């Protein structure tokens, strides 16, 4: 089983997605079982890839079609990609189980296909080593996201999808112009070779090209002015899909942004891009937190909180130091775990109690104790209370950003997270001490086990973060240390 079998990561979801129309006749439940099976298989493959990468220490380079880069397209599954593909697979597996209860609208076979292809898109974006391939996988993720946002076929869902399509369309077109410029000046599309040639490109072209690339990805990674579509999309999408959005779709965009930005670190005008990203990230955190303050709908509130945490990650990644990137990656892991738990529980309440308005949450402590407990742990973790996982990464991010001289930005971020504490604790109060209408709802076993597993994971990272911190450190160096990246990719000596 040599490294090339890692390409199963892409082939498996694809072939199973194409297989779904054949088993359409078996009915909704069978397809959902099939979906869970496939996501479980994908998790297995991802775990195997994770084990090989972390035991050998060397990244797996999947060369499609047998061509060595830059001639063919290569999938660079380094420390970060291995870790995150596993997270993508696990979250999808959990959400597949969650889809049993929460997705009832009719064409479940098409839902299963879109679900698998969303997972595929995110995996592809994280693993690819070629910028045009990155564009293709970004498009796969975005179009599946458009379809899934509008999946509920309500007016709001269609409106949210429309906004996402218009903004996503503009973003990806400019991203393509960026690729055209970079390809026009260098002649290659492979990331490693681009990193080598970055210094020698004509400065104006690389300045315009890089800012266009960053602009395109910033729309996908929900930075401040460009994330206007995100709250609507999160709110209107079916519950499992929202969890997948916030857990890894945004992360893939953020990773791609970080990868591209650090690739061109020798290019001219690089530090301006970093400064712009820092400002946009801080504004994201600020705007998202304040908008979540007086939200009537809990799902939209948690969407805003997820956007602000993403802003925090973007700040960490664009601070420009190794420590910052490592802290950012550690926050990505923590955020993925916490937000999956939050959207899982809020979605489940929305399904069982009918609607995610704040009034449905009052007295939840007695109505659905297990879900309420999981939601409280998730909320406390998101706020950054010690003995929970986000506390560690938030402290490191603040220290890293101050160390790089961004004390004002750190101040704004901390002020914003005070606001975050307020609205989460208001939610906790309504849940445990709000009025109770007396009837208790039975909670399903599988979701309970998933919620408990996530709660235990949060507490485990919170109490003893060492193992996860070493993971995040190696993944962080994988992004930041571009020279090691170039060394790992077996470049063919192409060109004049």
């Amino acid at each position, binding site marked *: 089983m040599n490294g*090339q*079998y890692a*390409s199963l990561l*892409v*082939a498996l979801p*694809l*072939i199973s*997605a*194409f*297989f779904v*129309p*054949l088993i359409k006749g078996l009915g909704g439940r069978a397809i959902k079982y099939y979906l869970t099976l496939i996501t479980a298989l994908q998790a297995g493959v991802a775990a195997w890839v994770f084990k090989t990468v972390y035991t050998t220490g060397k990244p797996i380079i*999947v*060369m*499609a*079609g*047998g*061509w060595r880069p*830059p*001639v*063919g*397209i290569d999938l660079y599954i380094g420390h970060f990609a291995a870790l995150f593909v596993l997270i993508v697979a696990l979250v999808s597996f959990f959400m597949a189980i969650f889809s049993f209860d929460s997705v009832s609208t*009719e*064409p479940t076979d*098409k839902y299963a296909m*879109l679900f698998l*292809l969303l997972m*595929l898109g995110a995996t*592809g974006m994280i693993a690819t080593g*070629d910028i*045009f*391939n990155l564009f*293709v*996988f970004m498009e*796969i993720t975005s*179009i*599946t996201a*458009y*379809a899934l946002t*509008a*999946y509920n*076929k309500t007016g709001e869902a*269609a409106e949210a999808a429309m906004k996402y399509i218009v903004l996503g369309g503009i973003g990806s077109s400019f991203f393509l*112009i960026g690729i055209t*410029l970079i390809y*026009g*000046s260098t*002649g*290659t*599309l*492979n990331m490693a070779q681009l990193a080598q040639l970055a210094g020698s490109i004509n400065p*104006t*072209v690389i*300045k*315009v*090209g890089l800012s*266009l690339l960053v602009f395109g990805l910033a729309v996908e990674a929900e930075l401040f002015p460009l994330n206007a579509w995100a709250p609507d999309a999160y709110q209107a999408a079916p519950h499992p899909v929202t969890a997948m959005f916030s857990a890894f779709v945004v992360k893939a965009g953020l990773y791609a942004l970080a990868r591209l930005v650090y690739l061109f670190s020798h290019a001219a005008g690089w530090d301006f891009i970093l400064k712009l990203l820092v400002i946009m990230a801080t504004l994201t955190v600020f705007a998202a937190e304040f908008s979540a303050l007086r939200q009537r709908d809990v799902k939209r509130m948690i969407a805003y909180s997820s956007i602000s945490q993403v802003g925090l990650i973007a700040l960490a990644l664009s601070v420009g130091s190794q420590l910052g990137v490592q802290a950012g990656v550690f926050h990505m892991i923590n955020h993925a775990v916490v937000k999956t738990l939050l959207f899982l529980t809020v979605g489940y309440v929305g399904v069982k109690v009918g609607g995610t308005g704040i009034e449905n949450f009052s007295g939840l402590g007695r109505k659905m104790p297990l879900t309420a407990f999981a939601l409280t742990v998730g909320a406390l973790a998101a706020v950054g209370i010690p003995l929970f996982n986000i506390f560690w990464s938030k402290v490191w991010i603040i220290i890293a950003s101050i160390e790089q001289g961004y004390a004002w930005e750190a101040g704004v971020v901390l002020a914003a997270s005070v606001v975050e504490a307020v609205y989460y604790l208001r939610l906790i109060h309504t849940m445990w001490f709000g009025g109770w209408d007396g009837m208790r709802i039975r909670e399903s076993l599988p979701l309970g086990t998933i919620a408990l597993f996530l709660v235990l994971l949060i507490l485990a990272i919170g109490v003893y973060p060492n193992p996860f911190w070493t993971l995040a450190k190696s993944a962080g160096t994988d992004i930041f240390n571009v020279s090691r990246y170039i060394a790992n990719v077996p470049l063919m000596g*192409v*060109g*004049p």
Partner: protein
Amino acid sequence: MVSVLKRSLAIITLLIIGYWLAQGLAGVPFGQDRMLVGKYYLENVKAQTGAVNAVTAIVVNYRGFDTLGEVTVLFIASTGVGALLWRRKKRRTAKTEGSVVLRTGSELLFPFILMFGTYIFIHGHLTPGGGFPGGATIATAFLILYMAFVDYEIPHRLFEPLEGLAGMGYVLVGLIGLAIGSYFLFDWIWQTWHWGAANLGRLFSGGFIPIIYTLIGLKVGTELSGIVDSMLTEEVRE
């Protein structure tokens, strides 16, 4: 009043952005030979893939992953449109029957358009065009039938499984490549079996490019006609 202000503001912003992009493009002068990887492709396309048409060789063989992704994109589009416009019971929205000329013409032309479409995607590695244009022409054949007849609908029970099968076929070809040549999407026909090395430039050459292109052609044809069908039908409200 506001719209005039808005329009002028938009024009000014776009001029500045245009100027900025133009400045970037000026760095990439038109028509110069800046090929790096392109030159490698042109020199070894015949030897390594057996295809005459360098573009299709790149599309299917060298950068096969892109095409795989891109086939998925189209698949997502058709599933998405199907999911969004899904109704329990649907019927055609067309009210008026096509004119006599259209009806008889379409009946006559239908088989020839199909044949022309298959010609395009079978000769993908020789002549310009390939799976996608071929599939599109096939879809236009069905489109004409939709325009001509009020109650015509594509045979869904046949097309959807066909679409799935074609997609699976493509991935299977890739997986066989993984099994035999230990690389995903490896052209085992050309690289290991060396079929069709002799008749370069004729039909049976170009490794697994024709096979993939036929699969893509079928897939694109069925998908696009599926999209056309969902757009041209509406819900039956009891």
